[in-house]
């Protein structure tokens, strides 16, 4: 290639390249120009704020004035704060329950969609719609579906004779938790299902045929053919799913704002409430920073937990 030629064959350079030409053609310089816009955005608005956030968590700034270094005081205060502990509990519960169900239902839906079906293409396109519609807007629809007085769900259940009084979906502590978890699952299932479906379609049907001839039951076919072949894609999908569930903000903020009595506060909503509405930037930043270890742990568990199988089988990691 021309650039390799220019670097390697110093003897054959016809004339001295001017500084300007070197800036235009030298590989390293050229790369710098190409990387500049993306690097500028990511450093100014991602890396710098990330570092700043960690620094802020050790200071006591308010909106409009910068703070002074106060060491671990924010964290000490949070450690003794019952609301923060509740938020951690809620976040872990929300993430664990929602991710497990999203995975189970998503995989089931993917398996169903992988069957021979009429109008397959349309069905698949429809499945993704909850993922396309902005979360806030579908959260508002759920807010209406979960209305304490006029909920169509309560009404239908009453007509069927299953309950006698309206369900207070978002007013009762555990009802509210299950309701937001349900909404999160509803929103996340299409993503899991469609990505797993893409993986399923690459599994050759002859494997299933061979297994059936050998007398494998449907469960054995799933357990020993489908699941091992899907493992790499499951690992990636679940990592993303856990990540986005753990840091969820929109659904909660629209449906409950963390209520009733902080029962649905996640760490993200609590940090918004403390930092932006309450003005305690340092405390909010400490809550955000406290999310990082949880996030890393969640990512590592879902990534390595599901990848281990691959290493055991002696495949290279790459």
């Amino acid at each position, binding site marked *: *290639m*021309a650039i390799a030629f220019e670097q390697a064959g110093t003897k054959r350079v016809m004339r001295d390249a001017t500084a300007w030409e070197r800036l235009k053609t030298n590989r390293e310089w050229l*790369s710098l120009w*190409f*990387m500049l816009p*993306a*690097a500028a955005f*990511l450093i100014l*608005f*991602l890396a710098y704020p*990330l570092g700043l*956030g960690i620094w*802020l968590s050790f200071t006591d700034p308010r909106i409009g004035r910068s703070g002074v270094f106060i060491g671990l005081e924010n964290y000490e205060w949070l450690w003794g704060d019952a609301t923060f502990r509740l938020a951690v509990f809620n976040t872990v519960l929300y993430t664990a329950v929602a991710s497990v169900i999203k995975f189970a239902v998503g995989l*089931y839906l993917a398996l*169903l969609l992988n*069957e021979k*079906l009429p109008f397959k*293409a349309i*069905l698949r*396109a429809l499945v993704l*719609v*909850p993922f*396309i519609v*902005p979360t*806030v*807007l*579908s959260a*508002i*629809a*759920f807010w*209406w*579906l979960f209305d304490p*007085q006029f909920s169509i769900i309560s009404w239908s259940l009453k007509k069927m004779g299953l309950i006698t009084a309206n369900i207070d979906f978002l007013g009762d502590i555990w009802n509210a938790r299950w309701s937001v978890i349900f909404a999160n699952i*509803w929103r996340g299932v*299409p993503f899991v299902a*469609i*990505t797993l479906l*893409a*993986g399923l*379609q*690459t599994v*050759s*049907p002859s494997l299933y*045929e061979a297994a*059936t001839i050998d007398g494998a039951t449907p469960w054995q076919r799933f357990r020993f053919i489908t699941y091992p072949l899907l493992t790499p*894609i499951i690992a*990636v*999908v679940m990592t993303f799913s856990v*990540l986005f569930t753990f*840091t969820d903000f929109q659904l909660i903020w*629209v449906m409950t704002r963390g209520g009733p009595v902080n029962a649905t506060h996640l760490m*993200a909503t609590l940090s*918004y409430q403390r930092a*932006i509405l309450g003005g305690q930037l340092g405390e*909010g*930043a400490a809550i*955000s920073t406290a999310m990082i270890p949880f*996030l890393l742990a969640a990512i590592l568990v879902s990534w390595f937990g599901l990848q281990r199988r691959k290493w055991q089988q002696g495949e290279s*990691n*790459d």
Partner: protein
Amino acid sequence: MTDALAGKVATPRDVLTGSAPLADETEGMSYLHSLPRRLITVYLPLSLIMFVLLFPFYWMALTSIKPDEQLLDLDTYSPFWTWNPTIKHIYKLLFETEYPIWLWNTMLVAVCATALSIIASVLAAYAIVRLRYKGAQWVGGAIFLAYLVPPSILFIPLSTVVFQYGLFDTPFALILTYPTILIPFSTWLLMGYFKTIPFELEECALIDGASRWQILLRIVLPLSVPGLISAFIFCFTLCWNEFIYALTFISSTQYKTVPVAIVTALVDGDIYRWGSLMAGAMIGSLPLVILYAFFVEHYVSAMTGAVKE
């Protein structure tokens, strides 16, 4: 990881049409299952899941055209249908609130942020994949890590940064911060597409005396149009969906985006507000649904492309 998985993932067209590359044309073992059996094991659970997934949208659309008196009276009228639809809620939304301005803001922010991100990502992805400067692999990994940094741990420090730069409460606060979410994703996606373009094409062009810039514009970009479309619509969707930055950085009603404005400005004490709220939610999702209807394949490709690395 990249190449190993790339071979295993079906292309989006296959996902949608159902003809995976490995699946042969025979009907497989499905003839072994009788229709009654399939009704229970396939059609019943599938229709149940589809019903749950789509009912909220039906309810949203129905609520937005129901007259007020039917909205809250579930017993006198059948709640699942209405014989006298009204456009009152939609009219109220479009002509008595600032909804058109919010729509315009959202569109403006989404288009600008997406355009900026695509330009930056094309350049970065090309440099990482094809210029392969020293440390390019590390930069690629760092960009993937950047994709894993969620907005909800960034918005607090970012709000002070936005304030320092004097961008607070302007559309630029959003136009310049959204790319941090979009660039990692679209760079990653485009890297995958650029890798599939044969080296030889570029070598020929280099021999013919083309500069890197010309190669990018004349050879690489025309060949990666599907990837560009995928990146564009996915970024656009992410922008439209973004909430926490818009909620934090914008305080005046005139600059708000649709998701934020609906939650903060449209929710009032009116007991009949549900009609216009649902109309707002419906019209707000309409642009994305229309875009989706035209580019289903590209959406799926962007999703699976992001996952397959």
